[in-house]
């Protein structure tokens, strides 16, 4: 690909990313730019743009399987001043519910309640649903056939994740069996129980 063509492609993609209200995937970009455009060229162009916007006030971020042009996080306050907005704070209970759904999906409401030790209100579920962060994936085939919740695409977009694999620290998350095992090993020797180990969990 000639330098001129490569530059033109960069500039086309730049315009599309600015104008789009959702992340654009390679597939979507190819649809727009013409199927004959090789995906590898698009990738190269995006990398170039990413490098170009590195350390700038706006950035190209890879989210939800595509790319999006966004303002840099460090300017959050400036923009709040510009629009005279105060960002809504989410309650801790909503964040905890969201985290449990994100890391454990599919999860039923009863499972979330068991983990948090408190009731989960329908109000909170619908708040998360309205934001597009969670959605009903189906029903669990147990008595009562409760809804199974998982995260929606907007969750990835809003939290700047390319896929669920990018959830922070998901590798360290212990499941019930692992916790059970750890507890059984550590709870016996009362005197020798070592506190620093528990901090990591």
């Amino acid at each position, binding site marked *: 690909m000639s330098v001129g063509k490569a530059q033109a492609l960069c500039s086309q993609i730049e315009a599309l990313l600015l104008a*789009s209200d959702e992340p654009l995937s390679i597939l979507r970009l190819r649809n727009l730019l013409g199927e004959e455009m090789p995906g590898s060229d698009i990738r190269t162009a995006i990398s170039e743009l990413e490098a170009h916007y590195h350390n700038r006030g706006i950035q190209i971020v890879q989210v939800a399987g595509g790319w999006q*042009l966004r303002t840099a996080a460090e300017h959050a306050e400036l923009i709040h001043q510009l629009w005279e907005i105060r960002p809504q704070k989410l309650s801790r209970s909503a*964040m*905890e519910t969201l985290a449990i759904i994100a890391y454990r999906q599919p999860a039923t409401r009863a499972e979330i309640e068991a983990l948090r*030790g408190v009731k989960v209100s329908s109000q909170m579920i619908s708040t998360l649903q309205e934001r*597009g962060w969670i959605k009903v994936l189906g029903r669990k085939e147990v008595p009562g056939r409760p809804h199974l919740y998982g995260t929606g695409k907007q969750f990835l977009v809003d939290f700047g994740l390319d896929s669920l694999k990018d959830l*922070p*620290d998901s590798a360290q998350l212990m499941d019930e069996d692992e916790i059970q095992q750890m507890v059984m090993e550590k*709870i*016996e020797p009362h005197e020798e129980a070592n506190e620093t180990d528990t901090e990591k969990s």
Partner: protein
Amino acid sequence: MNQAVQAELITHEHESHALPPVHLDQFEGPLDILLHLIRSQEMDVFDIPMALITTQYLGILEEQNELDLEVAGDYLVMASTLMQLKSRMLLPRPELDDEGNEIDPRAELAAQLIAYEQYRMLSEELNERPRLGRDLFLRPVFPESKEVARPLPEADLDGLLVAFRTVLKRVGGEVRHRIFTETMSVRERMATVLERLCKGGILLDELLADEPGREALVTTLLAILELWRQQAITVVQSENLGSITLLIKGDSNERG
């Protein structure tokens, strides 16, 4: 309501362990309180001092002026769990696991606390991530529909909800209600329908045919449904998608 129970079970000899006062609003439930007590006093989650923790936990509940009934249940269940564990710690342990080892009564609680703490930590981490709309912003070009034709996208319920949210955001979330005076009353219409049905059954289509305008149609339909609910009339449909006949109750041998 739990004071009486507590008074019997708790002797106030642990006053020396006075903790700074806390309010339940700060916590996300009983597990959150327990973790706070354990971590702030650098206790070992694998060797929880049940007597002390139970006293402190009940102390916190006691300090609350009034418990919100919505959440009180969860806190009280934990209170009774703690008291039960406390007493089981004093007894010999007959419970053995598969390998014949004694099971510490606190094992389940410890596992619960560790599991909860994981998610509590992850939720904080998630909350600290730069978030679109809070820390990061987009500048999408959104052509007004007057200027462009917009083919309909494939929709699902979640997509619809998200789209609706976007629209609400654009109109500034302002919702205006206009209240119209009722020009036709359902009750009035119920009387008319009954009167008509007294002359014999009638097809739904026929009954609705005379109604001028949508409002009248809706009112009549509501009147029919209300009459049906009150079992003043019978509604008969002899075949799928066939015509619907309305009859006055106890008049079913007569077909319209």
